[in-house]
Every structure is written in structure tokens, then in C-alpha cells.
């Protein structure tokens, strides 16, 4: 089977198929909407920076029922000695064989029926979109030929071992979908890892939703490390209840066209959101982060930090919107976006937007685009550190600002090394004791 984006009818037919983990009643509506929507192009406001040409002209195979991954394929995505519970999605489908959750781990997988029973409002949430205006890829994502993997952490439980969810593409069109349901006062660390065969030229259109009940804590890390010729669109949305904490870090390392749409809705009072990211793009690739933090209730806080590292002829985009709704008094929101251009041909766009409808709030934002600081470079060189190493050291420091907040040290080190390797750094720098 193939997905051909230049031919709507075939795509719609594909979308009508039902796979495992699909919620009833959502797909039909999405298929109808999809029929009315044109493929987005540069004139579509929401997509004007994205480079979709590769997707539009592409014809992708769609995975059938068989699995091909073996252990050596996943060797490269191990974080040193860190012990994890591993879940593997191969081309968007759960690969049971490669999945290993410790028997003592409290995290569970649910069917849609089980999830709806525990969380009755879920169906409505899933029908609603992340954007007010119907969006082509969001609607495509709702169609049920790929269903949700549903993770549930019961109230009061702490998942000590990080859950490492590997989403692997062999070069197909796939729609990995994940729903994370965190019960009251539970605590979860989840690392999502998008990767694939290095030769793959696939397209991933992914959806992930978090529902954090009262006092729940979620540490979320997403590593987008798609093969160099692959495209990736990922929508993340968190529905945060009273006093819950959602700390999210989205680290973009690879992919021809990567677009992360990250939304946090602080629906309960006193919710606390940290939304951070590093986006590294080199060569002719494109990395884009479109974020929305929606403060709906009083006493919420959000800390948003994104760092772009752009080399070659790469383009980076940060579009960050913060909304403080009328009732959301005493909101604290801070947004920062900094971009480091490592070459003259690289570009970065920063578009911060604040919409504030409450009067007793503290909101800050700032965005910068710049090169490595010559004075700092000279200072390092004047101590005997060579120019290449000095550049690497400063770039490392720039990314580390975000990375060091990740609560699993082995992952911080792994990411740090990955970033330096991709920038052809001559060395790694360890954190000193």
C-alpha cells in the first residue's frame, strides 16, 4: 500500500482504514474534513515557513502487518547504563517483540475502551483539534488507520525507571500516536525517541497527548532524530489539571524537515509547565517549533526556553504564543528563545506572541539571533584552547542550558555528545565533579 500526497482520493481511502487502538467515531469526521482541505502551501499562514515540497511530491509506502526490527537496529539509541522500560513502535505500530516493560513497573497499557471508562471526557478532547482552524495534517492524524498507544499511570504511582518509547521509521509514511494518562499525584518520566534507518526517506505525522490529573508530575523528553532525508510533523498537547507539573523538552537533532507543534493547556489552577527545546539543524534541513501555552486558570506558571543551533544553510523557526485567559490571574509566564548561527547562510526566525487578557500577571519574553561571541572565543583561545574546540565549547554551553534540566543524567550526556558529534566537534566535554 502507498500514501501518495499528490492524490487526495487515495489518501482519503487510506485514512478510512481502521487499525488497532483507534477511538470510535473520530476518524469518520476527520476523513470528511480532510476531503475539503487543500494540501497546505506557502500561502497557508500556519505552514508558511515549513518546507513541505518533499512530502507533497512524495509517494510513501505504508507498513503492512509485518515487523523487521532487530536488536542491533536499536543499539544506537541506548543511553549508556541508564535502565529504562522500553516500548518500540515500528512505523507507528507497536512492536510487541521489542517491547520490554519491567514486571514491577506501575505503568500500564490500555485499550481505547478501558481509557474511555477511566476518563470519560477523553473522546471529546480527541475530536477537538490543536488549532481552531482545521489543519490538514492534524485531521490526517485523527484518521484511524493508526490508533493510539495508551499509557496509564494509576494515581499515586511513581514510575521510577524512565519509559523509553522508540518510534522507528523504516522509511514509510506512519502516524505514531500516543496518549499518556497520568493519575492524581503520579510521577512519570517518558523519553520519546523518533529515529529510523539512516537511509530512510519517510514521513512521520505524529500525535501525542498528555492528560495530567491533579498533582501529577510528568517529565517528558522527546528526541527527534529522524533520518537525514525524512520529514517529521509532531503535535504534542498536554491537558494539565490543578497543580500538575508537565516538564517537556523537545530536542531536535535530525530530519530534513522537522516541525514540532507543542501545546500546553493549563486547565487547572496552579499548574506548572516547563516547555523547553533545543533544535539543531545543519546542511539544508529545516527545524521548526510552534508552541502554545494557554493559561486558563489562576496561579499557573510557565517557563519556556528554546535554543536553536543552526549551521550550513539550515533554517530554524520558533513561533511561540502565550495566552493568559481572563480568569488566569497571578500567572507567571516567561519565554526565551535564543538562536546561534554557525554559518553565514543559516537563518533563524523568531516570532514570540503574547496575548494577555488578565491584569494581574507577570509575563516576559525575549528572543535573540546571533553568532558565537568573538570576545568569548578569544578568551578561550588565549588560554590555549584551539579555535575549533573553543567553538564547540561555547556551542555545547549554549545547548546545555536546556539539556541540564533533564532529570536523567545519562540522557543529558548522550544528547550532549550527539550534538557535538553532529557539529563535528573535536571533543566531548564532561561535567566535572
Amino acid at each position, binding site marked *: 500500500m502507498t500514501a501518495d500526497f499528490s492524490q487526495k482520493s487515495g489518501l482519503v481511502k487510506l485514512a478510512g482504514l481502521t487499525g488497532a487502538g483507534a477511538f470510535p467515531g473520530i476518524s469518520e469526521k476527520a476523513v470528511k474534513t480532510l476531503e475539503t482541505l487543500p494540501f497546505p502551501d506557502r500561502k497557508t499562514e500556519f505552514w508558511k515557513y515549513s518546507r513541505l515540497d518533499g512530502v507533497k511530491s512524495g509517494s510513501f509506502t505504508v507498513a503492512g502487518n509485518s515487523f523487521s526490527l532487530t536488536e542491533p537496529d536499536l543499539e544506537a539509541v541506548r543511553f549508556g547504563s541508564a535502565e529504562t522500560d522500553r516500548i518500540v513502535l515500528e512505523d507507528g505500530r507497536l512492536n510487541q517483540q521489542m517491547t520490554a516493560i519491567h514486571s514491577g513497573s506501575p505503568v500500564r497499557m490500555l485499550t481505547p475502551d478501558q481509557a474511555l471508562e477511566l476518563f470519560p471526557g477523553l473522546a471529546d478532547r480527541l475530536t477537538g483539534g490543536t488549532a481552531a482552524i482545521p489543519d490538514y495534517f492534524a485531521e490526517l492524524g485523527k484518521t484511524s488507520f493508526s490508533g493510539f498507544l495508551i499509557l496509564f499511570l494509576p494515581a499515586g504511582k511513581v514510575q521510577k525507571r524512565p519509559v523509553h518509547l522508540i518510534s522507528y521509521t523504516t522509511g514509510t509514511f506512519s502516524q505514531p500516536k500516543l496518549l499518556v494518562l497520568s493519575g492524581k499525584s503520579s510521577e512519570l518520566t517518558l523519553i520519546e525517541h523518533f529515529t529510523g534507518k539512516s537511509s530512510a526517506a519517510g514521513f512521520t505525522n505524529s500525535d501525542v497527548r498528555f492528560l495530567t490529573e491533579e498533582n501529577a508530575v510528568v517529565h517528558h523528553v522527546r528526541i527527534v532524530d529522524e533520518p537525514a532525508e525524512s520529514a517529521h510533523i509532531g503535535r504534542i498537547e498536554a491537558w494539565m489539571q490543578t497543580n500538575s507539573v508537565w516538564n517537556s523538552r523537545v530536542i531536535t537533532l535530525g530530519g530534513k524537515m522537522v516541525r514540532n507543534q507543542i501545546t500546553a493547556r493549563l486547565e487547572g489552577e496552579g499548574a506548572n509547565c516547563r516547555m523547553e527545546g533545543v533544535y539543531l539543524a545543519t546542511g539544508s534541513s529545516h527545524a521548526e517549533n510552534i508552541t502554545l501555552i494557554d493559561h486558563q486558570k489562576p496561579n499557573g506558571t510557565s517557563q519556556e526556553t528554546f535554543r536553536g543551533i543552526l549551521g550550513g544553510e539550515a533554517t530554524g523557526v520558533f513561533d511561540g504564543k502565550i495566552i493568559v485567559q481572563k480568569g488566569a490571574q497571578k500567572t507567571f509566564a516567561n519565554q526565551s528563545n535564543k538562536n546561534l548561527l554557525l554559518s553565514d547562510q543559516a537563518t533563524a526566525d523568531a516570532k514570540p506572541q503574547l496575548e494577555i487578557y488578565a491584569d494581574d500577571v507577570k509575563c516576559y519574553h525575549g528572543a535573540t539571533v546571533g553568532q558565537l561571541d568573538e570576545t568569548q572565543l578569544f*578568551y578561550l583561545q*588565549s588560554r*590555549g584552547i584551539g579555535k575549533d574546540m573553543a567553538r564547540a565549547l561555547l556551542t555545547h554551553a549554549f545547548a546545555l542550558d536546556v539539556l541540564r534540566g533533564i532529570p536523567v543524567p545519562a540522557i543529558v550526556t548522550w544528547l550532549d555528545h550527539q550534538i557535538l558529534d553532529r557539529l563535528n566537534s573535536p571533543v566531548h566535554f564532561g561535567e*566535572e565533579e
Partner: protein
Amino acid sequence: MLSIQNLHASVGGKDILKGISLEVKAGEVHAIMGPNGSGKSTLSKVLAGRDEYEVTAGSVSYLGKDLLDLSPEDRAREGVFLAFQYPVEIPGVSNIMFLRTALNEIRKYHGREPVEAPEFLKLVREKTRILDLDESLLKRPVNEGFSGGEKKRNEIFQMAVLEPKLAILDETDSGLDIDALRAVSEGINKLKSSENAIIMVTHYQRLLDYIVPDFVHVLLNGKIVKSGNRELALELEEKGYDWIREELKEETA
């Protein structure tokens, strides 16, 4: 050790150094004094290899090598050290990691193995004690949020660890209280030997009470206009620079 001949340097088309000549031998301490804007920091940075300054004429030979031909990092590896007048903050890089990287780069250049962690720690502890530097500063990012005095101490601390042959200290004494001045002076004096040389740029002769110079030079408007011994520093302290300007006028008249 260092021989500067008729050095001219400019930035953005503006001439700043206008023919500096200076001989520094191993074991010597030279003080360079002069009013604000006379070119002291420019001279220091040109010697350390800051490329925003263009050398338009002259030559500098250091231990028999053409210094101006070396990259800034190679100058450092050959033993040149500049203590910055305004030390640079480097967020995200810990002081200790920075220093260890620097030391290992210098060792590598000389074909030596990297320093082992315990040995390095021992070295660092010893030097922090000499400089009375709070050990907590080691883990903090380089100079970030340091007080003025801490930054200056940190420069001398780095110097103490890297053990250069030629140390150029650009107003290391300014902004230091008397205790800090004493600690910093001790650090500098520890480095002094018959094989090393020190060039101290200063406004005041205060530092010279602690580190006695063999020569004192007056830099005025990009030129060394007068050289002498320790007495000259005292005279400058007392009378300022105007009498030298007067002297110069008489000479040219």
C-alpha cells in the same frame, strides 16, 4: 625573551599603537603605566593575538619565534598569558572544566599526556589556597556573576595553574581591596623566577609595593615616551603625567 620593535597597530582605521619598542628578558618585571586611552590594553591584546587589531608595522619576537605569526592559542601554548583587564563571562562552561581543558590543550601541544583528575584537583586546591579563592567559584560558570575582585583573582588563579613564561597583567590591581591585592600579589610573586617574565600594566604604583619592577615605562598616546626604574613610578604617582607631556613638548620644540 620578548623583543618588540616599532610596533604599530590600528583598529577600524584608527592608529592606536604608534611605534612601540620594548625588550623584556627572562627574570625581569616590567611595569607599563600611562593615562586612560593611551593604548595599554591594546598592546596587551595585540601581544595575546586579538585579531580585531591590525598590526600595520613592526615586529615581535618571542623566544626566537615570530609572535605575530602564531594563533592566539599557540601563543598561549608557548607560554604567553594575558590577565584581562575585563575578564570575559562564559555562561554554561564551568570554571574548572574550562581550566582543565586549557591545561590539557597546552600539555598536548608539548606532547604530554592529559592531567589525571586527582592530580589536577590537587593542583587546583593548592592554587586556590594561595589566592584565597573560594572553592565554590570553581564549579560556577567562568566569571559569570563573579564580583570584580573575584574576576581578577580568577585570572591570576588561571595563571597560577597554567604557569606561563610571559605573563601580561592588564590592570589586575584595579578594583581590588587590600586583602585581595595581597593575595593576588602573592600569586604573581610565586610565578616569578629567573626563567619567567612579567609585564604589569597599571595605573597606580600600589601594586608595585608588592611586586617590585625592574623597569617602569610610560605609555602615552601609543608610544613609550619614558623608561626608568621604580623611582619613576613614585614620581608618576606624585606628579601625574603632565610633566612628561611638558618634557616631550620641550624636546620636540
